[in-house]
């Protein structure tokens, strides 16, 4: 017993030695933290402050209190951009979640050809949104493939320049965004579906559950944590969406496809109204805030 006890004690001591933090290790944490602090947290704080100022970027910013926020109330373009952002969250987010889940369900079972189908649907994810936008811009041209197909199936009256029409521009931009996002969400759901214990399905089948009942009572509840991740990801992605709109329409024509993100960018770097632009950025932050907190709480809980 005594012989056994001695090494145990020394192990314990050694373990405590590991736990004492050597000073070099503090640098391991402090250097990255300083980089992020200087280039992310410090600018973010400045962003909040700038939203309370009027600034052209040249002379010193003047403090105007909440004037920028008051101005939004009477700014029609802000109204359009806010509405479009909501439409974007609902359609881009909703369709990519529902479509991604559908595709994952379709391609979940390992069978012949499934690897090819998954790869085909996933490929656009690796393209930049700018390249994606240009590919689709060519498709939407008046003499492009899309109008040709419409002509070929007898819908000549539907032909028009999809990106130049204020009524269709936002939706025309949405399609390429979805083309690229669906494969990504599909991968998230495929990972989730892989984690479901097959025994649950066997039990359900023994009880005579139909395919719909299996989905409703086995798959869906089991996907709960994936669902909340997908929800966070798509809301954060929707609010960040910028590249595809900027590349295809720059928010036009007549601001019809303007999102808060594109409006913020053009206000800042084209109109040089840096204070008002910062206030727009704060609005985007506020919209994302709930999702960010939910995401962090989950990360905190799982990081035990």
């Amino acid at each position: 017993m005594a012989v056994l006890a001695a090494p145990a004690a020394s192990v314990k001591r050694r373990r405590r030695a590991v736990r004492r933090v050597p000073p070099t290790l503090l640098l391991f944490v402090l250097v990255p933290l300083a980089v992020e602090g200087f280039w992310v947290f410090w600018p973010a704080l400045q962003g909040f402050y700038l939203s309370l100022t009027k600034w052209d970027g040249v002379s010193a910013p003047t403090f105007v209190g909440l004037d920028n926020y008051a101005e939004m109330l009477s700014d029609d373009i802000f109204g359009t951009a806010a509405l479009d952002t909501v439409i974007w969250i609902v359609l881009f987010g909703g369709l990519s979640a529902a479509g991604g889940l559908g595709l994952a369900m379709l391609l979940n079972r390992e069978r012949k050809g499934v690897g090819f189908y998954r790869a085909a649907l996933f490929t656009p994810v690796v393209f930049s949104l700018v390249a994606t936008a240009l590919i689709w811009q060519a498709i939407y041209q008046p003499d492009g493939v899309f109008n040709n197909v419409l002509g070929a199936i007898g819908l000549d009256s539907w032909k028009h320049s999809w990106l130049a029409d204020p009524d269709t521009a936002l939706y025309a931009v949405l399609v390429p965004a979805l083309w690229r996002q669906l494969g990504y969400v599909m991968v998230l759901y495929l990972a989730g579906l892989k984690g479901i214990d097959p025994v649950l399905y066997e039990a359900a089948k023994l009880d005579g559950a139909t395919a719909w009942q299996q989905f409703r009572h086995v798959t869906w509840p089991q996907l709960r944590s994936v669902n909340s991740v997908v929800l966070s990801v798509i809301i954060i992605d929707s609010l960040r969406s910028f590249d595809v709109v900027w590349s295809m329409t720059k928010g036009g024509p007549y601001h019809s496809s303007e999102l808060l993100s594109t409006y913020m960018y053009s206000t800042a770097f084209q109109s040089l109204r840096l204070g008002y632009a910062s206030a727009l950025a704060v609005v985007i932050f506020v919209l994302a805030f709930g999702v960010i907190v939910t995401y962090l709480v989950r990360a905190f809980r799982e990081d035990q």
Partner: protein
Amino acid sequence: MSVTTTRPAPPAAPEERVPAKRNHKRARRTFGFHLVAGGLSVLWLLPIVLVITTSVRSFSDIASNGLGALPHSFDLSSFGEAWGVGGGGHAMLNSFIVTIPTVLLSLLLASAAAFALSRFQIPFRRTIILVMLSGNLLPPQILLVPVSKLSELLGIYDTLTALIIVQVGFGLGFYTFVLQGFMRSIPDEIQQAALIDGAGPIAIFWRIILPMTRPALAALGALAFTWTFNDLLWSITVLRTETVMPVTPALLGLQGQYVSNWNVIAAGSVIAAVPTVAVFLRFQKHFISGLAIGAIK
């Protein structure tokens, strides 16, 4: 993985005993699956086929037959145009000058932080991890104006250095979060043994923990490469001059330069997609598992 092994695959022999009617039904369902999945795949690949065919058509073919017509020509000069006069080659060089240091620096700093935070009792370690992650979740819009002014103040506005630093800073939180989760699953005994042999923390980090983190580093490396290479927003925020633009923003410039030369624009898009497609094909498994990290968390 477990799904394929645990789920009883329909054995071949009993299938013959299945009544013909059921067998027929199964064949029809398999056909239906391939019809739907195949149809969707074709639909998804069609835009890619289109951009490639457009890129190899001649300008006069597109002008006379229309952009959406079947190709009547085969002409690779558009690639030379996009690469040379259009500035694609130079932009590609800029992209690599930005992307490679960004990926290496991000992963180095993030894995150092992750090592300290996961293997030692750093005070407030959990808070630090979450604060770092929260920085990555911020909408970038809130940072654009201050970051562009900060880089002006430091005299690095309109340089690739600014773009590298900004992207490293913004990505760090996410990479640190993923890596520390991975490093915590490495058994403590290995570190103990090295410590008894007199290895310092840097040696343990560099020779033991980092090599064992390789799968996670490969996954994050592939993702970071794609994200950095495909970036538009940070580039157009800290850069202004055409000649320093990486491929992704340069593609927008190309579009402005060759307004209706769709063959050149298409060639540019194809060129811009080659590096990320290559990384994806080479690291396919890591890439997918990297994306899925988010779902499992």
